[in-house]
């Protein structure tokens, strides 16, 4: 096992342990705050899974989050069968994956990469938000849909009511932990290696027999599906869905979470979501219109000072110390 993997697992288990013992110290409200942050962390990890390994930036990831959210909301409000929640989760994942599949097919097989892809996904997000606002018979328009019942699984013997704080926290923590671990396993294995090869030199990777467009498409669809799942989870935990969830601002924020946390680390983005959401709360409580301004500055600062994320500060300090000790 190489050192990088060992370090990652170490940080991963520390995080899982912290999440696991947190309920013993926190009240219900705090639990729900961390639960929601975990859901956004999952969302950030889904973007990182695509952006981090392929180097292609998706600027409209909130569209998939929103699609998942709206599908979930509609299913929970309209369908009255046992296991409606499960149907909603599956529907949300499939819905987001379907849209990503269509867009990704045309773009990747059309040879669209890099900045072009970024732009098209940005436009997709703008349109998704507009659709959510104007298609009011289904989406509830500007104000969205409220009163979405919480998830509930009931199979006779086993009864799981996720309307309560602790069960929902445990459920979300379990799902997020599992998915982040699976994504990491995928991206450090053969799949991720091939993606890195495609990023480095697509022509060469294709010459070695890899179907680059198909590989990129599959990664994009998986990434969107997880974003859809995160959206669905968020909607039935929060009990409401609004056009903002498919909007450009959320797309922007998730990029910041990933960029601050460190692209390509999967865990970094989750931590990034935690810290930036906290900062957002503090700053917004001072003045609501200050937040976009700060967000803009964060973008510029990241690009110029911390291109590898906050975690890279430690690596840089290490390098500095090493350089210092070598000097006579």
């Amino acid at each position, binding site marked *: 096992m190489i050192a990088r993997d060992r370090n990652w697992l170490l940080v991963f288990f520390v995080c899982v342990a912290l999440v696991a013992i947190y309920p013993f110290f926190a009240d219900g409200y705090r639990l729900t705050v961390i639960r929601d942050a975990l859901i956004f962390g999952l969302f950030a990890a889904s973007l990182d899974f695509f952006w981090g390994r392929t180097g292609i930036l998706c600027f409209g990831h909130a569209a998939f989050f929103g699609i998942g959210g709206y599908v979930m909301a509609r299913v929970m409000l309209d369908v009255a069968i046992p296991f409606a929640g499960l149907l909603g989760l599956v529907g949300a994942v499939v819905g987001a994956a379907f849209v990503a599949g269509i867009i990704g097919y045309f773009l990747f097989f059309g040879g669209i990469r890099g900045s072009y892809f970024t732009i098209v996904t940005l436009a997709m997000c703008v*349109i998704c938000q507009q659709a959510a606002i104007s298609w009011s018979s289904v989406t509830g328009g500007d104000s969205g849909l409220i009163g979405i019942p919480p998830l509930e699984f009931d199979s006779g013997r086993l009864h799981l009511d996720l309307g309560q704080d602790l069960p929902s926290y445990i459920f979300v923590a379990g799902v997020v932990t599992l998915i982040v671990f699976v994504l990491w396993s995928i991206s450090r294995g053969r799949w991720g290696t091939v993606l890195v090869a495609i990023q480095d030199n697509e022509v060469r990777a294709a010459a070695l027999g890899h179907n680059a467009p198909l590989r990129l498409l599959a990664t994009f669809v998986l990434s969107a599906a997880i974003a859809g799942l995160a959206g669905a989870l968020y909607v039935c935990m929060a009990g409401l869905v609004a056009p903002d969830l498919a909007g450009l601002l959320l797309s922007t924020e998730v990029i910041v979470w990933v960029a601050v946390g460190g692209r390509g680390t999967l865990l970094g983005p989750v931590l990034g979501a935690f810290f930036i959401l906290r900062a957002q709360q503090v700053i917004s409580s001072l003045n609501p219109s200050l937040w976009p301004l700060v967000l803009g500055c964060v973008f510029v600062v990241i*690009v110029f000072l911390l291109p590898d994320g906050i975690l890279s500060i430690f690596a840089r300090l290490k390098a500095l110390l090493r350089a210092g000790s070598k000097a006579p």
Partner: protein
Amino acid sequence: MDFLLTTFLNAMTLISILLLVGLGLAISFGLMNVTNLAHGDFVTVGAFAVYFVQSIGGSFWLGLAAATVAGAAVGFILEFAIIRHLYSRPVSTVLATWGVSLILQQVLELTFGLGAKPVTPPVDGTFDLIFTAYPAYRLILIAIALMILLAVVLLIRKTSFGLDIRTVIQNREMAEGVGINTRRTYAIAFSFGAAIAGLAGGLIAPLAIVLPQMGVNYLANAFFVVIVGGAGSIGGLVAGSVFVGGFTSVLDYQISPSLAQAVVLLAAIVAVRLRPNGLLNGVSR
């Protein structure tokens, strides 16, 4: 007949707007390979410049001049402070310019306050075109757009500065070798694109809802125009504008605007799949 003509002129108005906004983008994105997500905000700055000049008693035409200057100034500062350092890092350019876009929007909102800003057109009323009457201002807008397009084509094809730009874009090292100041050429080209976008914003202002966030819609559409048409050619730019603008205005009558947008996006994506190098195959540069 009059319905057809009105639809045609509506399409022409939209195509002109897309042409103007896309022109600056064709220079920065198509030629210089800089993905500038703050391009839409040049449009916003231009629109606000017209509003500001009108609100202190100036005429629309003075406002239009101010819009051009304001666009150029913001573009120059952006190039000098940020983009210049990131020419070799495309993703970083995307992130940094998006940050600047957010900052510009918020600064405009803090300066001018919430709510849409009124801008009055320089001429009122309609112009009689035998079959139908059409708003005079829109006809002026179409005329100005065509004139600017012609001027830009002449500038790039016929002047020595245009030759410099084409040289730098084809081979930066070689251009430096023959004594062209590539940094300056890039800075001027970028500011020039921003100036046209600012001018476009000023022209759009009487027809649009002037808000700090208005830029993003033009941004997305302008990028489509450049991508569909094939980056880097004026002919492609025209083809892309006709494609996106024509499609949108025909659909606008049949279905709701946001559905029309979605259909146009889908059509644009399909067009890119079928013609990856642009509608005109991107041969004419």
